[in-house]
């Protein structure tokens, strides 16, 4: 391609700080978000590191239970609302949705920028809350502990999450309208890549569930500040009401976290198998089914909380139902690899790691859905391990897979492949070393959120902390080589992976207007021609 004829890339469209902070280009906003969530990921990760350091000794090494409680609350709050919930939608989703749709930008570019500013304001308030004063209620804010008994900056944390919620709603709304209205000519619903379907399902949950969280937090704040009895039985409230409302948001929210990951994996497996996605419509409708059923399972967090036997039975059954579509997806990804031409680039290694870790996380979810088993395992490290297998082993692996896969598109540079593969393998090993022992700890009865613990849990805790150190190396590595590649990486072509999808038809990095001519879509997604067959026949 003649560089002088090509339109300037979005990265060259202004180099001033102002050109970034006042941009309405979805690609630049995505980059702003990547900077922000990477920061929160490492702050939250540092808290996790201190948690694992403390647990090296049964007596606790950091010397103060109050500090420990603040650390795990900080870890939870930052990781859930400032990394996991936004992670894929606001970064990869923001960057790719218009490119995959063949559009110029999202439907509401200024709303998109506003949602970044809301996110940043929320982030600053959250940092003030968790670092400045500290919150020791855990990320779940159970009442009446949170309403009256807890010291610390509870209100600041609540305000931060309240504001972040509006950022989520704005982003979700933007994606829904964009996917409805800005598809390129010929881009029918069933021609959309699965990533967009996942983003759509995620956005619907964000728009419907987040307001419930906002109301719940508002009620919590009213109770704490004005003493209006909502959740504390001493002043006429009901403590279980808080749990119902909180999980009515927070269970769908875990699907907000994982569904975009499913979308990323559904793009990567076909690309590196050089084969069409197996069972496209089943994968698509599995996402929608998860989004719908995900609203009906919140009660499974409360099997020992004091709800009725009948409600426990209903929520147990529904929890099994919501696991079915996830199983369908796993089988379809494996089916995609069957008779493919499998390449082992870093995104694919992350994706394969994702399938293994997510499946383990999902299967251990069956333990927690089985009522009698849940009674023993809930509120122990088993739940911690289960959650991290899905959210870190699954979701963070998917995020890393996506970042590597679309890195050439976003930056115009290739990352160093050997380093990428090494990082994927170190993360997989470190992750299992960290969290597998926690399943055993949970079965043996070690409660979560304990600053100090009985001696006989020590060996497994040492193993887990050793894993955390490995995992830390695995996460810092990509920070290093990806940054390096920004300056010294090889220039990327428009489509370095030979992947399908409109985003690969535009130069890397794309020009500000995305496409010189609006593309016209004439075929189904994932039409890999299996070019290699020619070589072998």
């Amino acid at each position, binding site marked *: 391609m003649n560089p002088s004829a090509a339109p300037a890339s979005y990265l060259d469209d202004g180099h001033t700080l102002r050109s970034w902070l006042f941009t309405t280009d979805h690609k630049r906003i995505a980059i702003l978000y990547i900077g922000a969530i990477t920061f929160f990921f490492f702050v939250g990760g540092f808290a996790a590191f201190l948690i694992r350091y403390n647990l090296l000794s049964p007596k606790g090494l950091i010397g103060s239970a109050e500090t420990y409680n603040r650390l795990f609350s900080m870890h939870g709050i930052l990781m859930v609302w400032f990394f996991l919930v936004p992670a894929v939608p606001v970064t990869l989703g923001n960057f790719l949705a218009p490119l995959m749709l063949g559009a110029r930008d999202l439907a509401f570019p200024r709303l998109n920028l506003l949602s970044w500013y809301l996110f940043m304001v929320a982030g600053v308030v959250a940092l003030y809350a968790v670092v400045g004063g500290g919150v020791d209620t855990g990320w779940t804010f159970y009442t*009446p502990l949170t309403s009256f008994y807890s010291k610390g900056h509870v209100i600041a944390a609540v305000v931060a999450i309240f504001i972040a919620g509006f950022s989520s709603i704005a982003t979700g709304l933007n994606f829904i309208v964009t996917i409805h209205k800005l598809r390129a000519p010929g881009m029918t619903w069933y021609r959309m890549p699965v990533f967009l379907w996942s983003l759509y399902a995620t956005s619907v949950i964000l728009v419907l569930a987040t307001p419930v969280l906002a109301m719940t937090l508002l009620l919590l704040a009213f109770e704490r500040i004005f003493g209006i009895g909502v959740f504390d039985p001493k002043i006429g409230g009901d403590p279980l009401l808080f749990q119902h409302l909180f999980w009515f948001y927070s269970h769908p929210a875990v699907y907000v976290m994982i569904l975009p990951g499913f979308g990323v994996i559904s793009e990567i497996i076909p690309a590196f198998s050089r084969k069409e996605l197996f069972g496209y419509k089943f994968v698509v409708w599995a996402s929608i089914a998860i989004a719908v059923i995900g609203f009906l399972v919140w009660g499974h967090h409360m099997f020992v909380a004091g709800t009725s036997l009948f409600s426990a039975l209903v929520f147990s059954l529904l929890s099994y139902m919501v696991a079915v579509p996830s199983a369908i997806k796993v089988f379809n990804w494996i089916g995609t690899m069957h008779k493919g031409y499998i390449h082992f680039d870093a995104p694919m290694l992350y994706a394969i790691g994702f399938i293994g870790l997510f499946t383990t996380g999902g299967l251990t979810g069956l333990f927690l859905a089985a009522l*009698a088993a849940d009674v023993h395992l809930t509120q122990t490290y088993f739940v911690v391990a289960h959650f991290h297998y899905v959210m870190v082993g699954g979701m963070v692996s998917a995020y890393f897979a996506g970042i590597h896969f679309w890195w050439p598109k976003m930056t115009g540079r290739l990352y160093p492949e050997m380093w990428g593969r090494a990082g994927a393998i170190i993360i997989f090993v470190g992750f299992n070393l960290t969290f597998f022992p926690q399943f055993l700890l949970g079965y043996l009865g070690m409660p979560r959120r304990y600053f100090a613990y009985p001696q006989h849990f020590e060996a497994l805790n040492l193993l887990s902390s050793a894993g955390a150190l490995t995992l830390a190396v695995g996460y810092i590595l990509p920070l290093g080589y990806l940054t390096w590649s920004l300056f010294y990486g090889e220039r990327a072509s428009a489509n370095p992976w030979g992947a399908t999808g409109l985003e690969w038809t535009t130069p890397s990095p794309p020009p500000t207007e995305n496409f010189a001519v609006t593309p016209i879509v004439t075929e189904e997604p994932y039409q890999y021609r299996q070019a290699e067959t020619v070589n072998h026949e």
Partner: protein
Amino acid sequence: MNGYLPSATVEGREVDFLILALVLVSCAVLALVFGLILLYVVRYRADSGVYRGAPGRKTWRFEISWTAATLAVFFVLFIWGGDLYVRLFQPPADALQIYVIGKQWMWKVEHQGGQREINALHVPINRPIQLVMTSEDVIHDFSIPAFRIKHDVLPGRYESLWFQVETPGTYELFCTQLCGVGHYSMSGEVVAMSQPEFETWLAGGAAPGQREDMAAAGKALFTAHGCSGCHGEGGVGGSPATTGVSAPALAGLLGRSVKLQTGATVTADEKFIRDCLLTPDKMPIAGYPQIMPSFSGQISEENVLRLIAYIKSLKSGSRT
């Protein structure tokens, strides 16, 4: 502490059996998933010349098969876990009741004979034990891993937990619901002993002579707080002729259906008595003017439990 494996209760072993089944199902699925991935990445790696054939077009048969298989397995697990859960939380009628109060950050236990202990619970083996639990402040959770059982302990309610220990021993007790800074320290031990040893333990302890059983203590409170002024000595009930006001009889109250002025009918359980004491305006009893004053803030959780124990001890028509 000992005796974690195998579980010290019959129900605990059933839970272990369910968990074992879940482990086996998980291992089978993981073997399938990892096995297929491993097979495919070797067999269908890009530079492998193995013949791939024409790509299949029809996928729905596979989809239906694995969806149906997943559903079937899930349904079995659901029935299994649900059935056992219902049994785990339905205490036998003849269970020995022991009262537990959680507070930041300790467990207070009171036996019916008035024996009290902190962060420890002594129980006899081979006899169903039912804990009636409440909290003075935040939500706690009473968890005994060796029995594979736990339940949240909420303020303003009585939650119940039951078990029957087979193996004598000392077992760990944890609070497993985050309850503040001292959460990690809110642990203790459950000591299971034979019936004779348990009786010896009940009879021993500090100043056994001064101990008063819970119902007797409740009786003293019943007079001291003026309850008998309306409800009559022994809770026989009051009328304008006897006590000067209409007040319902309390003897034989537990387990009875009570009609409220709202038209609703409730079963009188511990929580009902507690609510009548602390928030009587919320449950006016049909047929009586609502003149019962609230004792909220005047009676400790322990004394509420003692009053309940006293009311429980009143049999219909009896005068103790």
